[in-house]
């Protein structure tokens, strides 16, 4: 069960591959039949406007603690073998990965449900805020789109 907040660009797929090799497989190789991974990427448009850049603010300390809380809740609700959350903060560009959540389990139903839970809870509870760079200036994103 790991969470990370990153200031630099990351590749979700390299992170997953490394995590499986270095953290998961030494303990759980042969036990997980299912991994569900969600990767959220910065789009170059939002609510009808072109977006050329983004600043992601967070509440250092509280954000970490809520990502851990959410991971803990997933582990209590489902038989997951492990979960991983990585979230980017700071200045980013279109097509940059923003967030990665992953859940490993013996079976696929659990992996899908836990991964979905992680991203929905992250979006509704973890203190991150997006500020978009538009052609006409900047704007704070006011709310996330519902699930």
């Amino acid at each position, binding site marked *: 069960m790991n969470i990370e907040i990153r200031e630099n660009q990351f590749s979700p797929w390299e992170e997953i591959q490394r995590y499986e090799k270095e953290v998961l497989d030494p303990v759980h190789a042969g036990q997980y039949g299912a991994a569900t991974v969600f990767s*959220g990427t910065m789009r170059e448009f939002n609510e009808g406007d072109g977006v050329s850049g983004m600043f992601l*603010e967070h*509440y250092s300390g509280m954000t970490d603690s809520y990502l851990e809380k959410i991971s803990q809740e997933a582990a209590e609700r489902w038989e997951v073998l492990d979960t991983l959350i990585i979230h980017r903060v700071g200045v980013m560009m279109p097509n940059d990965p923003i967030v990665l959540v992953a859940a490993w389990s013996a079976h696929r139903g659990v992996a899908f449900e836990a991964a979905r839970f992680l991203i929905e809870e992250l979006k509704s509870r973890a*203190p*991150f805020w997006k500020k978009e760079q538009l052609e006409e200036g900047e704007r704070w994103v006011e709310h*996330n789109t519902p699930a």
Partner: protein
Amino acid sequence: MIEVRFFASLREEMGREGAQLEPSEASTIGEVWERVADGKKRPANLLMARNMDYSDADTPVVDGDEVAFFPPVTGG
């Protein structure tokens, strides 16, 4: 002291990162807002945290607490 913090669009509206209060100035999060908001009404969707846990306006505050106010979260 009570440490008060603002985030995101609220920080920009307030024009500052936060404030500090004497414990005697406020006994709940709602009262903290009154002291630091320069007369601004509490937005209906305002989120509040005490020591990094979501709380509400009635939550008591004591010396040494960190109280944060911020708009709806938009991560992910």
